[in-house]
């Protein structure tokens, strides 16, 4: 293990977090200015027809806060699992050169377990979309 040089540490904030913040603030100011000009120059007449949600001319019925299908939640959960794993692999990849064949074997085992997990949710029907034929 050699000591970590400050010039090569993985930090985005070394010289210029302040500059990045200023950049962000300037962008925000600019977008605010754009929207201000648009609201100032644009028309300002409103009527009930115009303020109604646009559903291709059909008058909307019921609440638009639909309960969406379960598979979307499943995708969100799978995403959490797999994305965290990807972040973990990133941490491994940064130091890959120093790890040798042992590092490769370990990550192979890790990814093998990950693929097993994918096969499991696949077989359990977690990746199925649309109406399932199994409903009674």
């Amino acid at each position, binding site marked *: 293990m050699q000591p970590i040089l400050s010039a090569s540490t993985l930090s985005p904030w070394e010289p210029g977090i302040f500059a990045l913040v200023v950049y*962000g603030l300037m962008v925000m100011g600019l977008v605010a200015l754009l929207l201000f000009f*648009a609201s100032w120059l644009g028309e300002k007449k409103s009527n009930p027809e115009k303020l109604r949600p646009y559903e291709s001319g059909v008058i909307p019925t019921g609440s638009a806060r639909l309960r969406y299908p379960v598979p979307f939640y499943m995708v969100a959960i799978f995403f959490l699992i797999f994305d965290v794993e990807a972040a973990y692999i990133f941490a491994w990849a940064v130091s890959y050169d120093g790890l040798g064949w042992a590092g490769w074997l370990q990550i192979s085992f890790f990814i093998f377990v990950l693929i097993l997990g994918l096969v499991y949710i696949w077989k359990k029907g977690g990746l199925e979309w649309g109406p399932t034929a199994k409903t009674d």
Partner: protein
Amino acid sequence: MAAAWNSLVNVLGPDLTRIVIGLVGVLGLVQINALFLVWLERKVAAHIQLRIGPKEVGPFGILQTIVDGVKLVSKELITPRHVDRKLYMLAPVAIFLPVLLSFVVIPFSETLQIRDINVGLLIIFAFSTFNVLAILMGGWASNNKYSLLGAVRSVAQNVAYEIPLLLSLLSVLLWCNSLQMSEIVESQSRVWNVFWMPIAALIYLICATAETNRAPFDIPEAESELVAGFHTEYSGMRFALFFLAEYSNMLIVAAVATTLFFGGWKSPPFLGFLPVPGLVWFFLKTYALIFGVIWIRWTFPRLRFDQLMNFCWKIMIPAALLHLVVYAGIIKFIR
């Protein structure tokens, strides 16, 4: 001029000056890029469909999008009833902000890069994830069933395709041993990465197309079933911000692909004798990739949503994982 420059640097410091100048440049680039891409897309689409496309305003209709932009600014900003006002107003800003921030680390040429952060690659993908939040904000706040459906689909699609995208980037990281954009470009001066890792490049390009919601993956905005997807209720300048963000996103993913896989601002090795500046090469490659993406849009039909998700979870993710293991082994074997 030089005196003014020096006083500017003195007042703000070199760091801030760079940022301010960079921001002005990026804003110009974003606007011109969007104007050009909209025109290009309409023109290419027209010629693919044996039409002519815009031709009235300016030579070859190139000023058409400027006229459209002026029209958009002068339109009313409609805020429909029963929307969640705060989220509704915030969404266009939230989608536009991270797009501009991503440009901070993109190396346009050897010297033209706003900030060469040593985790540049991570920064880009950290900011590009905000996209999902903004889409969900806009879709939920709009109080419109089509918007909500579009937003939910879009979020599911974006998060799913992000996994193979990240996994394909790991090959570059393993090969170049760096997350810094300038070093990644530097390591490709002899052979472009695309020749070392064609599969990773292919996975990246497919996922990037899906991430930017382009056809054949444009289900969130499938106009034949969802009106306009998550931005159905937006009008005028707010709609324009969504649009700007979309086309700037295309530029970013193409620019990142250029940097990671196609040698960045380096000239092709056999054309090294030409006195063409790196900036020109960079934009040539980037727009060639974007042209490819447009071409794909007007060639392939839209997928169905379950096909889209199955393609990601059952093909792309296992392929990306296996490719990573094999590729890491190959690298270890060579070195």
